[in-house]
């Protein structure tokens, strides 16, 4: 991250896309959109377009990797070659492999892993278009895909980043803000349990700024949590209506 001279916040306090500092990008969430997956969800957050699918619980394969007392959660975060400015090779990059791990670890606390010993649950995330904050949007979608697959969960996990641009703490950074800004703090939350399941940071923040950023991110998570519940409700309404017909 390098702070350049161009202004990311104008005189009115608005950001390049017209948002206020504490404002989320427009978010659209759909649940159960893939036919083959056991559970799936689609999220659009700003220009991010991300699909998440869940397969399982199913017999773990290879067997020697199965766990005797709980399910094995696996996660693959993957970007489509056309999702970013310069074409990305389809082979998983080091970044994608790290994100696969932190996303998995942000979802694990939400699942009753011990319900299905010796099985595995696979989470597949495909970023179709990336615009900053894809790991958070991926967690939001993947948690819904888990719910859609009927996996027993403690709570939904909602994720959102806060960060610093032009010395202001702002919510939900888009790509330009992330690249030119001063810091980015992605956070994932199980709202009912007040449990932070993802926390990363890059950039530079004082302790005070950091505290402010975390709190702002948590507020963002709670707003997204509400959207997640709406999306689930919408799905069940659809199912209900379909059942009536």
């Amino acid at each position, binding site marked *: 991250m390098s702070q350049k001279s161009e202004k990311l916040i104008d005189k009115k306090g608005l950001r390049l896309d017209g948002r206020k500092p504490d404002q989320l990008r427009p978010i659209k969430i759909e649940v159960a959109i893939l036919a083959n997956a056991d559970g799936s969800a689609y999220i659009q957050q700003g220009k991010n377009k991300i699909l998440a699918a869940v397969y399982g619980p199913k017999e773990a394969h290879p067997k020697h990797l199965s766990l005797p007392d709980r399910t094995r959660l696996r996660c693959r975060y993957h970007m489509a*070659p056309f999702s970013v400015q310069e074409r990305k090779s389809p082979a998983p990059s080091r970044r994608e492999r790290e994100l696969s791990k932190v996303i998995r670890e942000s979802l694990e606390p939400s699942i009753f892993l011990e319900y299905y010993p010796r099985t595995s649950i696979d989470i597949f995330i495909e970023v179709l278009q990336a615009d900053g904050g894809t790991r958070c949007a991926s967690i939001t979608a993947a948690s819904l895909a888990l719910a859609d697959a009927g996996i027993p969960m403690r709570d939904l996990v909602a994720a959102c980043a806060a960060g610093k641009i032009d010395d202001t703490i702002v919510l939900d950074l888009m790509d330009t803000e992330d690249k030119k800004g001063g810091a980015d703090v992605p956070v994932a939350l199980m709202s009912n349990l007040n449990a932070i399941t993802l926390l990363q940071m890059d950039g530079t923040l004082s302790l005070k700024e950091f505290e402010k950023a975390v709190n702002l991110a948590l507020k963002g998570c709670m707003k997204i949590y509400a959207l997640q519940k709406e999306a689930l409700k919408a799905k069940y309404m659809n199912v209900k209506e379909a059942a009536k017909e």
Partner: protein
Amino acid sequence: MSSIVVRVKKKQIEQLIAKGKRLDGRGLTDYREIQIEQGVVERAEGSARVLLGKTEVLAGIKIEVGTPYSDTPNEGVLTVNAELVPLASPTFEPGPPSENAIELARVVDRGIRESKAIDLEKLCIKPGKKVFIVFVDVYVLNHDGNLIDASALAALAALLNTKMFNYELEEDDVKIKPGRKPLPIRKHPIAITCAKINGKLVVDPWLEEEQIMDARLTMTTDDDGNICAIQKGGSGWFTSKQVLETAKIAKEKAKELRKKLVKA
């Protein structure tokens, strides 16, 4: 699937087909419903999503500057890649491209290349040194059969949706200029696949049919009704009569699909 389930299903599908019917209610030469949506990934130079029944394929186009092949110094480069990403089917595994993904990409590639759909000479920047590379990335999002036709269609729709940037050469460096223009597309190659089941040909096989078919035959035809690519797949065979029948079906069905695409 266990082999018993497959055998039972095979019998059921075969009996229906003997009567000219199919499990999903279609006639033998009926295509599934097609939806084409272009421009779904704004960040790509071009993109399109195709729904063929429940089969869903996304194609995205990226254009970069690179070097031409030494035997075609005056032509841009076409590269087709297909990913059978694991969210599309329980049978797709993460990892490097499988045999099936490679075949899919190469069949889509041949249709575009052999029909000379793209005027590659117009993608030359500096002969022998710099040309545009057109990356066609086919992304299968849900697999319900007949990935070849859906992928070829998505790739073509994405190419038609593609806007190239303007540029000028400054001392061998390519400088991007404002404005965009479409790719020079000359032909619209359409792939049509028939499956052979119990001696009969059915068009556009869906997943359950593919699982029990003897073999499949894909023919890609261009706007003039010429064949430009063929691929037989599966471990069965065709008679020469069935081959010619497939060619006729392919030509006819391609016309229908091409119309939908031009509309799209």
